[in-house]
C-alpha cells in the first residue's frame, strides 16, 4: 500500500478543501497573531494547495492562537485555522513536542487550565 502523503493527511484530518482558497487574505487580515508569524496564514494555505510538505517546518502554525477567527470569516469555507490544527497534529504524531516543560518558568505558578491546554496543543 502506498503511504499517505503529508498533504493528503493534512486534508483528511482537517476535512477541509484547501483548493477552494482564492487567496483573498481575509484569514491574515483578521488574525490577531499575523504580525508574529514567519509565514502568513493565507501563505500557509497556498503552500498546502501546492503540495509543499515543508509546511511542517513552518513556525507560524505554533504561533496560531487557535481563535478560529479566520475559520469564521473565510469566504470560501476553507477554514485555515482547522488546516493549521491538522498540520500541528501531523507533526505531533511524529513525536515532535513543541513544549519543553523544563523551560517553563515558575511552572508551579501557572494556571492549571493553561498547562492542560498547552499540553494538548503542543505535545503529542
Amino acid at each position, binding site marked *: 500500500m502506498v503511504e499517505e502523503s503529508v498533504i493528503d493527511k493534512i486534508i483528511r484530518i482537517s476535512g477541509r478543501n484547501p483548493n477552494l482558497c482564492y487567496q483573498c*487574505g481575509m484569514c*491574515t*487580515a483578521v488574525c490577531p497573531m499575523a504580525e508574529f508569524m514567519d509565514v502568513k496564514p493565507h501563505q500557509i494555505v497556498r503552500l498546502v494547495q501546492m503540495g509543499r510538505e515543508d509546511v511542517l517546518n513552518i513556525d507560524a502554525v505554533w504561533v496560531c492562537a487557535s481563535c478560529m477567527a479566520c475559520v469564521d470569516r473565510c469566504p470560501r469555507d476553507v477554514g485555515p485555522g482547522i488546516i493549521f490544527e491538522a498540520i500541528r497534529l501531523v507533526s505531533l504524531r511524529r513525536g515532535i513536542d513543541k513544549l519543553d516543560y523544563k523551560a517553563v518558568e515558575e511552572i508551579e505558578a501557572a494556571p492549571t487550565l493553561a498547562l492542560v491546554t498547552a499540553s494538548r496543543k503542543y505535545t503529542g
Partner: protein
Amino acid sequence: MLDGIDYSEPRIGVFVCHCGTNIAAVVDVKKVVEEAKKLPGVVHAEDYMYMCSGIGQQLIINAIREKKLNGVVVAACTPSLHYETFARAVESAGLSRQRYKIVSIREYCSWVHFHDRKRATEKAIRIVAAAVAEIRDNKVYEPIRRKVIKKALVIGGGIAGMTAALDLANAGIPVILVEKEPTIGGKMIQLSVTFPTLDCAQCTITPRMAEVGKHPNIKLYTLSEVIDVSGHIGNFHVKIRKKPRMVDPEECRLCGWCANACPVEVINEFTRGLSKRKAIYLPFPQAVPASFVIDEEHCTRCGMCVKVCPVNAINLDEKEEIIEEDVGAIILATGYDLYDGRKLPEYGYGIYKNVIDSLQFEQLIVPSGPTKGRIVRISDGKPAKRVVFIQCAGQRDVNHLPYCSKICCMYVAKEALMFKSKVPDGEAYIFYIDVRTAGKGYEEFYKKVQEIPGVKYIRGRVGKVWEDENGDLIVTGIDTLTGETVKIRADLVVLALGMIPNLDKRLVEKLKISTDEYGFAQEVHPKLKPVETEIGGVYIAGAVQGPKDISESVAQASAAASKALQLLTKDEIEKEPLIAEVDRERCDGCGLCVATCPYSAIKLEDGYARVDEIACEGCGMCVPSCPTGAINLRNMTNKQIHEIIKAVYGVR
C-alpha cells in the same frame, strides 16, 4: 394537411440519436433500436449520429412517408433543446405533433450513468418503451386559438423598464408602466457619472424619463404596485394598487411653498440618508411626473401645505385606488437593491457615520447632491482627504453573497477617479481580491485609474474598521502581495456592496415565475432564452435577472421588448390543445377540481364540471383531485399513465 395520415392502427417509428459520442459512448444505441423494434405498435426503428442535423430530420420525414408512420418517438437530448426541431420535422411530413414525443437519453442516461454502460442502455430502452406506450393512444386534437390583447405591462421604471416601455410604445403598443416610487428613474438617477465614458448619469437618463412621461402610448402609474395577476399568455388580467399622491400632478407648479410650510422633517431616501426632506417633497428636480408628493406614512395631516398651495393642488383625503388592466404581455424590470451593509459589522457600517456605501458615495460626487458635490466626512463635514474602498464587501463570500456582483470593480474605479478629480491631493486606497473588467473599454478604464498618482490598489482584505478618539477611521488589513499587514487612517470608508434582487416574493407568486437560489428572476435558458420566463408572455429585463451594468440592462430591456413584440403583433396565438376534459358520465359535480385548479379554469355547470379551454394550462392538478376519475388530461389519460408504468417495468 393531416388528411394523408391514417391513425386507425398504431404505426410508430423510433429514432435514436448518438449525439456524436455524447450518448453513443455510453448507451448501446444499436441495442436500443433492436429492442424498440419489438415494442407493440413500433414498425420502424433506426439510429443516426446527429438526429437534429438536416440529414437526421430528413430520415424521420422519409420514414413517415415511406413506412406510413402515424407516431414518432425521438430518443435524443432534452426536449428543452430540440422538441421544436423534431416537431416541425414531423409536421412537415404531415404528421401531427401530438403524435410525436422526444425523450432524453442523454441527460437522463449517458451523462449521469457514464460509469455503467449496461444499465444506462437498459434505462434508455425503458424510457423509449414508456414514450411509445404514451403516444400509442395519443389523439389528434385541433389547436386552440386565443386572442391576443395588444397591450403590455412593464413593472419597474428604472433604466431597464423605461427602455422596454419606450421600445414597445414606439412600435405602437400601448404600455402600462408601474413604478413603486413617486417618480421613475430607478437607481441610475442616483448615480454621478457612468463608466467607462464618465458621462453624467442624470443627463443620460433624464431625456428618457421625459420621453416616458410624455409618450402618448405610455400610461404611467407611480406609487403603484402590481398586487394580482391572472390569465395567461396574450391575455393577462392585472390589479394595481395606486397609493395616494395627495398632490395633483396636473396642477402642481413645483413652487415648493408646501415643502417650506411643512413642519415634518424625515430622512431623504433619495440621498440614502445623507440629507433630510419634508413630508411633502419633490424627490429630485427632474422627477417624472414633475410634481410634489406627500409621504403618507410621515404626514401628520396638519394641513399647512394645503393652506399655502397657490393652485389648490393638494388633497389630503385622497385614497388609494385599485386599478384593473388587461394586457397581452408582461415585462418584469424591478431591478436591484444593495446588500445590507449592517450585515458586515466588522466594517462598521451603520455604526460609524463615515463608513458609507457606494450609492451614498455617488451622492457625494453629484454636483446637485446633499453636499453640492463636495467630498466630506459625514460626521463633521470636514473635507475627506483619504478614502478607503473595500471591494467584495460581502460578495464572493459563502457567508454573505456567494456570487460576483459584476459591476463593483468598475464603479469603485470610477468613484476613485471622481474622488481624485475633486480632491487632487487626496489618497484613495482600494482593497480588492481580483479586479474584473470584462466589458468594452473597461480594462482601459481600469488602467487609466491605476495611472493616477494617489490611487493605490491593495491586493488583499480589510479585517476590521474602527473609529479612534479623534473620530478618524482606522482600517487594518493585509496586502497579500507583500504579505504585510496594513493600517490606514481614513476619513471615509466606502463599502462596495453587492447587488441583490429587488423582487417581492408575492409578485413572484402572482406571476408564477421561478427565481434562482439568490432570488433573482430565472430565465428559461441562460444562452438561448435569456429574457423569457417559464410563464409564456412574461419576460424579464435588467438587474432583476442577475447583476449587470447599465449597458447590459438596456440591451436586455430591448431584447425583452422585442420578444414581447413577437407576441403582441399577432392577432391570435395557438395553444397546444392538451387540456383537461370531463367525462360527464362519471362526474358527480362534487366541485373538488374547481377548488384545486390554480388557473380558475373549471366551473360547475348544470351539476357537472366544465373546463374553460382558453384558461386551462393543462397542468393536471385537477386529475388526482377527482374522486370518480372523471377528469383527464388529453393525451395523458389515466389509461396512458398505466400503460407508461407497465412499459417502464416491461409488463406486456
